[in-house]
């Protein structure tokens, strides 16, 4: 029975609960047992039972289908550690708005998922609680930073999950694990209660089995929140997609993000090209386009994000929560010993990079210049969207790599984000859907559109998903 239950998409399971054909407690228990025996280190904490606070599942939009939540979402009374030893065992006194909304909509918390520390990484190897593994090949990474969420959904340990995306942290692990990952327009979802990495870039979004599940979950996450001044009222209802063709869609293919310059592997490029052929058969008009500043996006990102992180992470000082080392020393010594012991190598690297980029005498050359490059990238995209509805690229230049393969070379690790960072800098929505396999490993296909084009994006991704016919789940038995 469990095996049959976990084959259902979240939308299918929720529909059965609402039709009173499936007991939500049975559904929760099936996933709870799978999550509790997780061998991928995808979870950092698993719930014992659905929280008592939720609505009646049969009457709720999400039908009692449990959701796995990335560790960095504050969750009242539940460990919320952002993958960091500096927050080990931290149980916040409140929940993130997004978590509250999903609970109210009938998606009880299943567990918290592993991640790169403070979302800094592309492999989940930077977790303070050990790396998560890819269910397609356990010697390989699941991507990151939302690697635990992606691995859990791919392995059928969770029906769906949420993560956060700063420069690709939802889309890239979704691609490497063969699931759908969606980064919304900046401001669509409240960031209240998300432990911050880079505030001008961070966005919450779903990781799911298919596009319908992504639209369903996103529809309950979205909306203005008085507690986050950057959150916005979504201009229209989020609709479940039904398109069976791409007629009327003009699809631009940016040369800068699809060629070998970004290191796109031949197998990834082949799977991407096959999907483009399918899109054309479905009626899309496909043409190359140019994003001249896209090759500089990564440089701008790796100045802006660390700069914001260096400010955001100042709050971890051993005073109000989390780790404290040598509390008997003087104040400055306590700060520095706490941070030296609590932060991992990559976090320290980025704090130093960000502090350097913001320092007097270098601010204009680094941070100031990066913010101007960001303007150029947004202008490039704006110009492209005058001619095209959406753009398409591979999500990641390569498939899942072996654990340890890129750990010694930060720059190589940063190149994971080559195809995803431009959309983050411009604040536009982008979705990754699985488009096939290369040497037995999943490949992601990314579609991006203008701000608030989510409904169009879901329609196009849905039509393409059906045409691709991907059903490459690793064993979920």
């Amino acid at each position, binding site marked *: 029975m469990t095996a049959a239950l976990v084959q259902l998409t979240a939308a299918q399971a929720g529909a059965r609960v609402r039709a009173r054909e499936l007991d939500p407690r049975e559904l929760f228990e099936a996933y709870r047992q799978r999550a509790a025996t997780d061998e991928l280190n995808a979870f950092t904490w698993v719930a014992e039972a659905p929280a008592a606070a939720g609505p009646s599942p049969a009457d709720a939009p999400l039908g009692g289908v449990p959701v796995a939540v990335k560790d960095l979402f504050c969750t009242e009374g539940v460990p919320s550690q952002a993958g960091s030893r500096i927050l080990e065992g931290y149980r*916040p006194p409140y929940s993130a708005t997004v978590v509250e909304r999903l609970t109210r909509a009938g998606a009880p918390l299943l567990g918290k998922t592993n991640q790169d520390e403070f979302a800094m990484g592309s492999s989940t190897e930077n977790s303070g609680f050990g790396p998560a593994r890819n269910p397609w090949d356990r010697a390989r990474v699941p991507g990151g930073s939302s690697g635990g969420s992606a691995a859990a959904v791919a392995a059928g340990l969770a029906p769906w999950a949420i993560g956060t995306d700063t420069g690709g942290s939802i889309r890239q692990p979704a691609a490497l694990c063969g699931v759908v990952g969606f980064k919304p327009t900046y401001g669509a979802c409240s960031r209240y209660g998300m432990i911050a990495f880079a505030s001008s870039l961070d966005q919450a979004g779903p990781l799911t089995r298919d596009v319908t599940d992504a639209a369903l979950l996103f529809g309950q996450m979205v909306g203005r929140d008085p507690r986050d001044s950057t959150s916005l009222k979504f201009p229209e209802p989020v609709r479940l997609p039904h398109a069976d063709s791409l007629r009327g869609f003009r699809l631009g293919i940016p040369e800068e993000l699809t060629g070998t310059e970004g290191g796109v592997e031949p197998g990834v490029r082949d799977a991407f090209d096959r999907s483009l052929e399918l899109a054309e058969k479905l009626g899309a008009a496909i043409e190359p386009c140019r994003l001249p500043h896209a090759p500089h996006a990564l440089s701008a990102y790796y100045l802006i994000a660390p700069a914001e992180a260096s400010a955001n992470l100042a709050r971890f000082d051993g005073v109000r929560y989390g780790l*404290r080392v040598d*509390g008997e*020393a003087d104040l400055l010594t306590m700060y520095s010993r706490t941070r030296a012991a609590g932060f991992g190598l990559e976090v*320290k690297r980025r704090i130093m990079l960000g502090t350097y980029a913001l320092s007097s005498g270098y601010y204009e050359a680094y941070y100031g210049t990066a913010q101007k490059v960001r*303007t150029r990238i*947004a202008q490039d995209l704006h110009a492209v969207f005058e001619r095209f509805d959406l753009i398409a690229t591979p999500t990641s230049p390569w498939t899942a790599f072996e654990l340890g393969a890129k750990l010694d070379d930060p720059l190589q690790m940063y190149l994971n984000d080559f195809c995803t960072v431009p959309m983050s*800098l411009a*604040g536009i929505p982008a979705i990754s859907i699985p488009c096939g396999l290369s040497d037995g490993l999943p490949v992601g296909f990314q579609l991006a559109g203008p701000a608030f084009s989510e409904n169009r994006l879901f329609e196009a991704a849905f039509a393409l998903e059906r045409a691709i016919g991907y059903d490459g789940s690793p064993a979920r038995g």
Partner: protein
Amino acid sequence: MASELSHVLDHIEKISELDLSDVPPTSHVVDAATPLRRDEPEPCLPREVVLAGAPEPVGDGFGVPSPGAAPA
């Protein structure tokens, strides 16, 4: 770590090759006014709930070593 950071900075510094003299820096990515909430006090978390997460609470506040204490 110094050599790793130098390597990263070498890559990043390629952006200095761009002519950006007439380009304004990005301040907001989405073209919408930032709405402000009403400036009205709301209930906040009880003191004991907040202090429960503190590593070394003292009385009804956060305990810190003296800034002037001799280094250990």
